[in-house]
Structures are given as C-alpha cells and as structure tokens.
C-alpha cells in the first residue's frame, strides 16, 4: 500500500495523497491547460521533477544554490506598522525584498490621482530611506470610471440587457480618462524620484482595461525612457468584454500569457508578470502543472524579465490570506525550476 504524503489543496487545506495520486494530478493539470490553450503538455522529465518536489516531506523547499531569482513585491508590507516609510524599510531589510512598491489602500489609479501630491511626498520620503528600487503601484481598474463610481454608463449592466454596442462604446469612453489618470500619477512619481511604476491586475475589466494600461505605459516610457514599468496581469486569459479592441494591430481579447507578454513588450513594459488563477478544489500540484504549461511559452520567448505573479490565489499559491509556507515554497520552486523565471 502506497504511503500517504501530506500536501495541500488550492484553498490551503491539508490533504493526503499518494505519490501516484500526485503524479495523476500533475498529468491532469498539464493536460487541462494544454487542451484549453492549445499548448504542448509538459515533458516526462519536467513532470518527474515536479513529482520529486511534491513528494518531499520537507516543511520547506527552495531552488538550488545559484538559481536564485529577484523578489519584487507589489503592495509591499502589510499596512499594519503605522508608518509607510517604515513598511518599505522593513520590506527591504527584514522581508528580503529586492524591489519594493509604495502603494495606497485605495489601490486604484483613479483614486490615487486625487491624492497624488501626498503620495508623491511619501515616495520622496521612501527614496531617502531605502536602497532597493521602489516603484509606485496601483490597479488600472477601468470599472471605476463606470456608474455609480464614475461618469460613464455601466457596461456590465448594459451587456445583460443585450445593449452590446452601447456597452462597447462605454468601455471605449472610459479608456481616455484612465490613461490620463495613470500618466498624471506617473509624472508626479517621476518628479518624486520613483524608480518605476507598477500596474497591478492589468486587464481585470477585460480588453479595454488592458488597452488603457498598454497605452498609458507607452506614453510614460516615451516621456521617461529610464523609468521602469512593471505590469502584472489579472489572469491567464484577457477577457473580451469589448471583443474588438486592438493594440498596434493585435486584438487583445482572448490573449494567453505568451501573447499578453508580446504586446506588453511592444508597449515598453520592462518587467512582465503573468498570472494564472488557482482552482481551489484541486491540489497545489495540479495547479502548478497547469500554471507552468500556460506560462512556459511566455518565458521561452520573452526578451524582458518575467516576474510571475505568485501569491494568494495566483501562480498555484493557495487562495487564503495565510498561504502555508510548505505550499508557497513548493509552488515557487517548481515555477522557477521549470520556467526559468527572472523573478517572483
């Protein structure tokens, strides 16, 4: 009778599986991704390495010496120290961050625009205190421009009514104000000394959200060629909420990580972060195999660094506010080993 191995599910709860069951999950995960995105499955050697990682009884695992990657932390800190400069300082010195991000709890460029002078002052204060690169980050969050939060008709309400053309027009109308707000914040942050900008969950509201982010990044990078631009995606597939929008000839609806990365490179992104959602009813091993299959072509063809989003609910890390370190370390190591990521 096969021995049971303690492992985790995508919701973080512990589970016991045999090595054969873990192997079956790995195979099923890669096949699910391959079928969905029309990609090759992982090879036997890759699956064998993943099985070794997930069959281990260690509390913690890590990459081999020499394979260390850069740790960039969007939303650095935990917002519970009581001093935002101290949060960045602690992230740099006590949490091992190689790159930090100053952020506000109302993590949306539309909100930040209204308080940008205060945020810029904090950025200046942080730059005086830390040595590591510090970006300013928020979410593009196109939905904020729709009613009741914004002035534009709510496309999420128009679509179920069958008012598709109006819904499309509303999304397009929201793009320019979002771009303007992002660029406005970036200009202020550049003056404050920021090393770069981060755009978290790009594409969360679909292809129009993604287009606005790409357009803004292009404008920022044209104006400030030395300013970094990190972009983390909202998911593995860009939703076609509009369906017909293009960035420089590439339709954005339906893009998977490799194609998302290619338009990001075109726009001037300097660090790209693919995101793959976690299925909470499947094992972490299943989720890892699926995530690797989806992101592998992206890493193989990228000319810019790839910092995969690996955290609560993405990149195979369990969807829980307190992801267990045994799961986090296994997922992180698996992703770095197979994908040859440039960072996490």
């Amino acid at each position, binding site marked *: 009778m096969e021995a049971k191995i303690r492992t985790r599910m995508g919701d973080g709860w512990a589970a016991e599986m045999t090595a054969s069951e873990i192997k079956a999950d790995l195979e099923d995960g890669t096949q699910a991704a391959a079928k969905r995105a029309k990609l090759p499955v992982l090879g036997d050697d890759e699956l064998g390495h993943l099985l070794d990682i997930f069959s281990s009884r260690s509390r913690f695992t890590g990459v081999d010496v020499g394979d*260390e990657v850069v740790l960039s932390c969007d939303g650095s800190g935990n917002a519970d120290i009581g001093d935002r400069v101290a949060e960045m300082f602690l992230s740099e010195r006590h949490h091992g961050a190689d790159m930090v991000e100053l952020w506000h709890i109302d993590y949306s460029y539309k909100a930040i625009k209204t308080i940008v002078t205060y945020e810029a002052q904090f950025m200046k204060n942080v730059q005086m205190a830390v040595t590591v690169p510090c970006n300013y980050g928020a979410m593009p969050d196109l939905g904020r421009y729709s009613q009741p939060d914004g002035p534009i008709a709510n496309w999420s309400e128009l679509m179920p009514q069958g008012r598709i053309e109006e819904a499309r027009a509303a999304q397009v109308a929201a793009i320019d104000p979002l771009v303007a707000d992002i660029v406005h914040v970036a200009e202020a942050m550049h003056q404050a000394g920021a090393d770069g900008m981060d755009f978290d969950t790009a594409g969360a509201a679909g292809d129009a959200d993604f287009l606005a982010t790409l357009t803004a990044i292009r404008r920022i990078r044209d104006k400030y060629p030395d300013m970094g631009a990190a972009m983390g995606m909202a998911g593995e597939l860009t939703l076609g909420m509009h369906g017909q929008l293009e960035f420089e000839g590439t339709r954005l609806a339906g893009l998977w990580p490799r194609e998302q990365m290619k338009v990001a490179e075109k726009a001037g992104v300097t660090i790209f972060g693919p995101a793959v959602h976690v299925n909470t009813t499947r094992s972490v091993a299943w989720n890892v195999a699926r995530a690797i299959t989806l992101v592998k072509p992206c890493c193989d063809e990228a000319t810019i660094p790839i910092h995969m989003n690996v955290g609560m609910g993405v990149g195979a890390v369990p969807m829980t506010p307190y992801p267990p370190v045994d799961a986090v370390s296994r997922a992180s190591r698996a992703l770095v080993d197979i994908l040859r990521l440039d960072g996490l």
Partner: protein
Amino acid sequence: MRTAGDLVARMQLTRGMRLKPAKAYVAEKLGVAVGDLSDPIVMHDVRAELGLGRIAVQELTYPDHPGAMEAKFRIAELLDVPINCVARFRERAGLPAT
C-alpha cells in the same frame, strides 16, 4: 540587500535585462563571480568596499558608511544605470551633473 538582489533588480527594471545577463553584468561590475552574488558572506564585504549599502543588525551598524541615498549614488555610478531619485537629488541639491 543581504546579497545583490537589489542590484540585479535594477538592471531588470531599468534596462529590461533578463536574469542571466543581468547577473553577469552586475557580477562583472562588482568584480565577483556570478555565484558570489547570492552569497551573503561575500556580498557583505563587497558592499562594504564599494559603498553599496548594508543592513544594520543590532550592534552591527554603519552610520559612517554609505546608505540609502548615498549608496544609490554609488550604485548608479558603479552599474552605469540611471537612478531617478539620484538625478532628482543631484538637481535639487544643486550638485554638478556628472
């Protein structure tokens, strides 16, 4: 900062360099082997010699060594990479441009 992660990160963020070339570039500029970049014992001395900033640990403090903004001036020069806050500081402090 215990090793060279922040230095490699700068080459990624500002120059869009992938990990392997970024590590090779930083190692060459620091005069160390690539493998030394992740060794905190080696990097503690290297960062001290080159004034790149170190982490204070209780009684091990470095108030008379470059840190934060001072270290970033050194990093920008050593890695030949623009650091925005260094340029802003130089400009606003009335320091001569390099």
